[in-house]
């Protein structure tokens, strides 16, 4: 690690040199032309809840100016809302280059106190950068790096280090029926837990794919249930249980492509009748039991390879 990176501030500063403007900017830019009226700008700013917008030449797409909410207020005060943007905009424009380090943009913001900077690449407008974009991006990146660092220094081989005659760790998640905004939350949280425990990447992947398919089944088909990840030193057990309605013909439900999912589920990219098969393919052992009127229980067991140098009693 480079010197100076030990402090949070040093790390943040390093990051502003590491990131390029194009990685931080918003590339969906709303623009106006010099021929538009200030009234049009006012409506546009309000509609998109933005405080300014670049002005682009209608003929060649060149950036010719910038118009902000302050210009609109001035125009309103002087009763010139029908005037063209070309006469009211600020020009020439201070811009920032897409390939420049973020630090350069931060310096420009500090120097000019602008609310936004148009981003150009070889003279063409490619995006817009606000101080808010910068803060959001820095926070996201710092958080991700922090998570990665936690994962790196995680208590690897935690099971071998915990001493007991029977160690098992249970992670249980409640799964609501038909709650599509949260579908996948349980599998995601389980996955992050397994990563934190330092388990092998491919095992984590198989376990969470099985968990996710099982969770989707609970969300789509059942009245609600639970997803459980039970960890032992030698294996992970993923168990999905629900409180009904149960599967009338389990053999049939296991056939690839057999589905009872409604069309709107299929439009989301699910419901192709592959879920149970996927679970089975991810698992070293697979069990399913179902009773109509009672519920369904699906279990997938994945064996954990003992890590080097460890001795796991079977």
């Amino acid at each position, binding site marked *: 690690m480079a010197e100076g990176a030990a402090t949070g501030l040093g790390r943040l500063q390093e990051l502003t040199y590491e990131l390029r403007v194009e990685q931080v900017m918003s*590339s969906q830019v709303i623009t106006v032309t010099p021929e538009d009226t200030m009234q049009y700008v006012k409506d546009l700013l309000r509609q998109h809840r933005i405080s300014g917008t670049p002005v682009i030449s209608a003929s060649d797409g060149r950036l010719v100016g910038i118009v902000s909410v302050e210009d609109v207020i001035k125009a309103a005060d002087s009763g010139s809302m029908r005037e063209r943007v070309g006469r009211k905009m600020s020009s020439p424009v201070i811009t920032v280059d897409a390939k420049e380090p973020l630090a350069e943009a931060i310096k420009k913001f500090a120097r000019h106190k602008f609310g936004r900077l148009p981003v150009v690449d070889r003279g063409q407008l490619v995006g817009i950068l606000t101080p808010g974009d910068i803060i959001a991006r820095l926070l996201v990146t710092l958080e991700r790096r922090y998570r990665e660092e936690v994962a790196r220094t995680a208590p690897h081989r935690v099971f071998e280090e915990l001493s007991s005659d029977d160690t098992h760790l249970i992670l249980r998640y409640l799964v609501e029926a038909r709650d599509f905004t949260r579908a996948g939350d349980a599998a995601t949280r389980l996955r992050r837990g397994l990563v934190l425990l330092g388990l092998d990447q491919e095992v984590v992947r198989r376990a969470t794919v099985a968990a996710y398919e099982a969770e989707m089944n609970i969300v789509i088909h059942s009245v609600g249930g639970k997803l459980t990840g039970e960890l032992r030193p030698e294996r992970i057990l993923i168990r999905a249980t629900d409180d009904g309605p149960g599967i009338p013909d389990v053999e049939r439900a296991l056939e690839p492509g057999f589905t009872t999912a409604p069309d709107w589920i299929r439009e989301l990219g699910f419901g*192709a009748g592959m879920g149970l098969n996927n679970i089975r393919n991810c698992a070293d052992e697979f069990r399913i039991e179902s009773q109509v009127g009672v519920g369904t229980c699906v279990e997938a067991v994945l064996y954990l390879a003992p890590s080097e140098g460890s001795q796991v009693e079977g």
Partner: protein
Amino acid sequence: MKLDEVRRILEAEVVSGNYEGSVEAQAGCGADLLSDVLAFTHTGTLLLTGLVNPQVLVTAEVAGIVAVVFVRGKRPPAETVRQAEERNVPLLSTHYTMFEACGRLYAAGLVGCDRRSPPPRHVTSAWM
């Protein structure tokens, strides 16, 4: 293949705030069926899809997808972008169709997820 190269080949636009061009994609997968993504991809796979709903990102995180490319110029809704950033899966958008986008990447050396199929002759695969 680095994401910067994917972006160049597909003339793709970055549509989320967590893009890092130096990240490597090990293989590619084109699918509009999320169960197929779960069944056939490996950790480090690049996903090309026409689906833009947030569930794509849950699937992507669970399957260890390295980045998602939306084809046919599709733009993701704000919730999808939010999820992408929260789950640290960068999003790209290309104007090419699914077929053409996959073809271009494959021709440039990005292998498929089926480890049995050989990559294009001039390419050394990460899976071989």
